[in-house]
């Protein structure tokens, strides 16, 4: 893309006039496009993306992220800013088309930014219903921490096909996961839930799963003895979800759990024989580094296999598998932390139920309840 055609932003539009204002803006932009390319603009939208934020200080960054995202995956963006200083709801609108290097235009998108007082959160479903793009999927992303048990949260979910939160931004991630599991399990809206904390650990899941792909390693997948995950607080939720994913996929049965400031330990049993498995979540002091390593020990009969995946400094990880009768398998792979924009883009590409995520979330909720019961 080489350029961006941008019909000027209009601000402070009363909500009742947003639809007409947007039509007018598209008419202006269409004639501009036609002047540049001798053809009217084409618009191939893929979804409506609703983002709700009460983080006043980061609105600018959120706005930039969304504009970049919509340029890549053309969508209608509805950005709701919950602002305690706002007395009367109002909107700003943008319409954009990108110009390609070949003098054609690429994708088009528009943004409706609505500022409203937090107590008017119940008005959001109606505004979404008016402005969303027909039968295209509606994704609702709740940015930042919110009360997952509040009626406002439930109300918004009624207009979402997929609801996305980011439990990494919550003060108590384990409790947030428990509440989210409860919400998704009890809401009658049929909304599909997701969590950017889950999307963030995709590469970790992929690398762990790959370790068990060779036929010779499959038997070890059902004979795991210990799992150690080292992380720091910037990815607490991700570490819990990663452990919960392994627990749910491997059919481990939690027995008890303990926690201290530096570690959480889950003890479980596996298989018909009830072999003991320990899952350790070790809090690392290296701030801002997220999940640092995953080490898995498995024992099948007299054979032992060790899997270790650890992050290097330069956006790569080293994945190592040691198993009997094989030379040590080691490779360095690209493993950069995806920026928020990429995480949301990944969410927009998926529209099917994520049963594996739901299972992991349930396992996390169970982990939380066991810890509470042993506290």
């Amino acid at each position, binding site marked *: 893309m080489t350029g961006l055609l941008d019909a000027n932003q209009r601000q402070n539009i009363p909500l009742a006039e947003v639809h007409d204002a947007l039509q007018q803006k598209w008419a202006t932009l269409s004639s501009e496009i036609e002047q540049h390319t001798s053809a009217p603009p084409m618009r191939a939208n893929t979804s409506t993306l609703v983002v709700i934020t009460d983080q006043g200080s980061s609105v600018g960054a959120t706005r930039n992220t969304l504009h970049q995202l919509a340029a890549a995956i053309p969508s209608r963006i509805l950005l709701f800013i919950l602002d305690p200083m706002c007395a009367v709801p109002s909107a700003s609108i943008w319409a954009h088309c990108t110009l390609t290097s070949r003098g054609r235009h*690429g994708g088009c998108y528009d943004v409706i930014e609505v500022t409203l007082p937090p107590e008017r959160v119940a008005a959001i479903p109606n505004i979404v219903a008016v402005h969303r793009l027909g039968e295209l999927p509606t994704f609702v992303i709740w940015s930042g921490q919110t009360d997952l048990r509040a009626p406002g949260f439930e109300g918004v979910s009624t207009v979402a096909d997929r609801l996305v939160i980011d439990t990494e931004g919550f003060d108590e991630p384990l409790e947030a996961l428990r509440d989210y599991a409860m919400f998704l399990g009890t809401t009658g809206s049929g909304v599909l839930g997701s969590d950017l904390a889950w999307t963030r650990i995709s590469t970790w899941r992929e690398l762990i799963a790959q370790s068990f*792909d*060779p036929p010779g390693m499959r038997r070890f997948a059902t004979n795991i003895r210990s799992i150690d995950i080292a992380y720091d607080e910037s990815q607490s939720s991700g570490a819990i979800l990663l452990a919960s994913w392994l627990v749910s996929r491997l059919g481990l049965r939690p027995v008890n759990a303990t926690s201290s400031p530096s570690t959480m330990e889950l003890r479980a049993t596996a298989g018909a024989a009830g072999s003991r498995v320990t899952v350790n979540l070790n809090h690392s002091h290296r701030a801002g580094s997220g999940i640092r390593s995953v080490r898995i020990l498995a024992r099948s009969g007299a054979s032992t296999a060790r899997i270790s995946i650890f992050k290097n400094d330069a956006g790569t990880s080293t994945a190592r598998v040691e198993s009997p009768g094989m030379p040590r398998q080691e490779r*360095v792979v690209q493993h950069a932390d995806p920026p928020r924009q990429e995480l949301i883009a990944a969410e927009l590409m998926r529209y099917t139920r994520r049963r594996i995520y739901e299972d992991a979330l349930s396992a996390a909720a169970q982990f939380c309840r066991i810890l509470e019961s042993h506290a």
Partner: protein
Amino acid sequence: MDDALAQADALNPNPLREGLDIERTPVPATIVIFGASGDLTFRKLIPALYDLAYERLLPAGFSILGFAHRDFDDASFREQMRAGVEEFSRNPLDNAVWDSFSAGIHYTRGDFTIDEDYDKLARRLREIDSDRGTTGNYLYYLATPPRFYEPIIDGLAARGLENPSSEASWRRIIVEKPFGHDYQSAHELNMAISEAFDEDNVYRIDHYLGKETVRNILAFRFGNGIYEPLWNRHYIDHVQITVAESIGIEDRAGYYERSGAIRDMVQNHLMQLFSLTAMEAPVSLAADAVRDEKVKVLNAVRPMRPELVPRQTVRAQYGPGYVSGEEVAGYRDETGVATDSMTETYAALTLYVDNWRWAGVPFYLRTGKRLARRVTEVAIRFRPVPQRLFESDPTEHSAPNELVLEIQPDEGINLNFKVKVPGPTFDLRPVNMVFQYGTAFNVQLPEAYERLLLDAMLGDRTLFIRRDEVEAAWQIVDRVISGWERQGAHSIPTYHSGSWGPSEANLLLAHDGHEWRRP
């Protein structure tokens, strides 16, 4: 995925795989590239393999063994391949990823026709198995001129390298096009391959099938309910399939003089697009279910009788002209081309499919070099409305509805229909509804070779061409070639470089009251 592989995976599945974007990754294996010092390896294969490694799709232990006549050692071959990755990979060269990937790159100098050199190859493969845990899984890639295919297959078979060393390991072979020069030679090549490899382990590659947009033809046809009811003789007037190139023959005169457009493009790329467009719905997406339907429709193509070849086909050669504002030479003035060459650089033909769906619907196929611009597309022309209702519609018959599946360079789907021009009268004009992949999914599409190499390592043959498919396509093309030979012409029509082909091609459609669309 192949049924057998799916069953094997189902018996002992990886419990952590479900729900991940990537269904599975290959087991550690060695890809042996015959002709590793050539352009295909440098520009396509190694960059594609690096991209797979970068995207975390290759297992630890994955190895490459280059085998060719040029004098490299492991280090100098790696250095050479690094340059190819820097220039041609989609992803940036990451030193740490490259170091890890390139540790698995090896080279053995050898002559494809010398038996003893296959001993060296076998020794080297055993060493790699031992050092990197590739456990006897070998994927042979024939990136050589076709004359070496049989010596290589014989060389492998003579050393037992075609046979898996254990029940758990595999030996597969990828064969690059051209698959023979005609039906007979393709059949003989297939026989030679089948003496060493089961058909299940043979992967005939046509990189067109690895393109996302070619695969999307299946998604578009069979993932939407609204088109399939229209996809037949009752609603479709005719189909035009175009594979146009703006480049000339570049430095491939030696090859091109022997093949021409019909062998170079029609027998493979055009036949693939044709069969995907015309086939019936497969019962599943399993490799053989899809390929069965493709073969069925190829077999349903009405055999072209020799006396009909002049009426149903056109061949021509490019003359001088202008492409992108630059003056370019004619075909016979290209280096390495005979001044009296009769090789066609343009071919167009009309095919009829004798089945219930397509009876009477012509399929017009065309391909050529040095045409106006590079474009690949499938255009479906629908029948015009049965009654002229709008008197003021000058386009009612000249511009019927059209659906265009654009394969390259602007991947997308266009639907052309008519609307009323605003105003007091009932004037109609055609408009386009355009969907472009790039505007809806602004993501980097993987290169065709990435997808195909990965599929071959995974044992998924869906996007590879089966033996009977190759032979059925050759039977269609052979009739055209023998018809041309029967004509015994001493001259061949020419077209201006930078045009859309010879005027004779317009007559081909004019016979049926049609005309070529302007892509």
